[in-house]
């Protein structure tokens, strides 16, 4: 009877979280995917870059769901930290370290393009490092509060 009650309590606690996380994931998908499809130059870029766009959406949605699913726990901040690190790696990979080289056929001739996005990449990394710092501070704050609360309850 006690075990059944516990299971029910756990389900009662988990199911709304899962629904909330799924809903949040869906909203994130809508907010990220559709606005980006409007500005992302699919026709200008090679197929591989278009696939990387889907990878970005997947990363963002996955971490949105994960952080929501574990909100109120230390894992929420762990996922936030992981998200910033994964996104930094993603941008570094997608932007080829900041220098993108493309070969485009234009009216019978081959045009080689080299785009130096190192300044832009630095901006992206800087913002993500700020987000990383924020997540670490949030995690520290969360743990500090938890320790404080446990010490108060012991007293």
């Amino acid at each position, binding site marked *: 009877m006690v075990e059944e009650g516990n299971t029910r309590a756990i389900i009662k606690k988990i199911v709304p979280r899962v629904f909330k996380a799924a809903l949040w994931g869906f909203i994130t998908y809508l907010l990220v995917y559709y606005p980006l499809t409007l*500005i992302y*130059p699919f026709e*200008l870029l090679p197929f591989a870059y278009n696939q990387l766009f889907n990878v970005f959406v997947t990363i963002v949605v996955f971490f949105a769901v994960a952080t929501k699913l574990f909100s109120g726990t230390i894992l929420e901040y762990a996922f936030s930290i992981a998200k910033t690190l994964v996104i930094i790696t993603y941008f570094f990979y997608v932007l080829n370290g900041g220098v993108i080289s493309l070969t485009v056929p*234009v*009216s019978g*001739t*081959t*045009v*080689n*393009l*080299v*785009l*130096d*996005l190192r*300044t*832009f990449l630095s*901006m*992206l990394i*800087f*913002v993500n490092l*700020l*987000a990383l*710092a*924020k997540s670490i*501070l*949030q995690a*520290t*704050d969360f743990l*500090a509060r938890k320790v404080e609360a446990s010490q108060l309850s012991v007293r």
Partner: protein
Amino acid sequence: MRQVIRALGWATNILWISIILFSITSLYSVTNLDIGIDLEKAQFFPSSEGVVFSLPFHIDNNGYYDISELNITTSVTDCNETLITLSETFVPSIPRGSSVETAHNVSINLKDITSIEFTPLLFSDSFFDLGTFITLNFAHAIPFQMSTNATIPWRAPFYGFSIVKVSTLPYNSTHCEVVTSLSFENHAVLDITGTMQLEIYNNINEQVTSGKTSLDVPSRRKYEGEVIMYLDLVDISRLTESGNVRVNFMTPMFILEWWSPYG
């Protein structure tokens, strides 16, 4: 700590919004940027030093950001990859909303092209490789490079030059006429105007006689003409059935010299 976290949150959000706005406006600007190299309108035209290859291009900056330090470098090499000319065009700034419509001119100095290294180009058509290298700075933050290669035809001014015939005709009691028939096609875009001097050498490389004529061959026309020289009847035995002709073509700008066999 909470205030620091809040400040970091605000800073992150503001920076993300700035980056997203910059990305959107940059993409919009790039898609509205009209850069065109009109290879079909590329042409040769004569100049005081030789010929100029004109490569028209235009840039309409309809975006939100300035374009600066536009540098266009063009190199022309012959089919053996020997550098013929290197030209550069620099546009310091193309502010947003403005456009540049100009031509990148590649000067080919005929003094250079008529050097021994390039002499075959005078007699046979060929192709030049035109390498174009463009660099610019977008929004003062994103350097951009573009390079392309194209092949352009070279039309020889003395295409198929040959001494058709060297014959003698009686002139007077002491001299005879040496009539040298020559032909070539002027495939070049510029007219050939100058003086041609011929020196006939026999098969033991002794100069026999010489003479000159003035030439005015329009572009894309065939020339067939005769140069009449005079030879002392005493020396007529020195004129052999075969030999070489030293050709000097002189214009106010340059002098060409080459050898052509006869007989």
